[in-house]
């Protein structure tokens, strides 16, 4: 399987994306998946449109991208975490 580039974004790129980044790293290890995690500010997504396979974000985005976008707020609140994890795994395993 090809290594997927996953963008992890939040508003400032310092707080919530760090938590989400950590959660995906752990998941990838657990499922033995190789991912290229890139932690950025949501405003920086434009620079990765040609290379990214997935965007996981806690910030809203109105833009349409050629890759799927998953909302990761559940990693912060603990509500619906399993669903979000499954969504991410499904994308990573594609």
């Amino acid at each position, binding site marked *: 399987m090809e290594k997927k580039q996953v963008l992890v974004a*939040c*508003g*400032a*790129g*310092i*707080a*919530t994306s*760090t*938590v989400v*980044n*950590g959660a995906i790293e752990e998941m990838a290890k657990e499922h033995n998946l190789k991912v290229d995690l890139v*932690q950025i500010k*949501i405003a920086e997504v434009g620079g990765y449109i040609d290379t990214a396979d997935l965007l996981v*974000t*806690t*910030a*809203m985005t109105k833009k349409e991208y050629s890759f799927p976008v998953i*909302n*990761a*707020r559940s*990693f*912060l*609140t*603990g*509500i619906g975490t399993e669903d979000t994890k499954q969504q991410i795994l499904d994308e990573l395993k594609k």
Partner: protein
Amino acid sequence: MSEIFFDESVILLDVEGIAKEEILTVMGRNLVDKELVKESFIQAIIAREGEFATGLPTAGISVAIPHTDVEHVNRKTISVGVLKKAVDFGVMGDESEITPVKLVFMLAMDEAHSQLTLLQQLMQIFQSEETLKYLVSEKNKTSIKHLLEEKLDFMACKGDE
């Protein structure tokens, strides 16, 4: 990496305000007065909250984690504000939704891409209804400080990357 600053003086009880901007100003001003952040921090955190809301509806009590860019910060700290009355904040990642926030954790971070353990532990607090309820009802700042020190394990974050 500097150690996190945390004591009773960054814990504010009965913070009053009608709008989130007032709450952010009161909490931000306290950090400016203590020289933990620069004067620009207040405007920056209000602007960031307007652009990217940080309200989080949790199991019980809604919280908000306002924060902004590292250049406005002198020394990293987490300021805790317990609001006298719930104030509406936008929901993170959901522009159209608002949530009545009772607890504000204002994050002043001094470097990007770090503090993973600290932030993960903070999110753990949000997932414990019991802890959140304790925080909004406790009137003793020292008790709140002790609880957070224990939950956030500040010492363990020292060498964390």
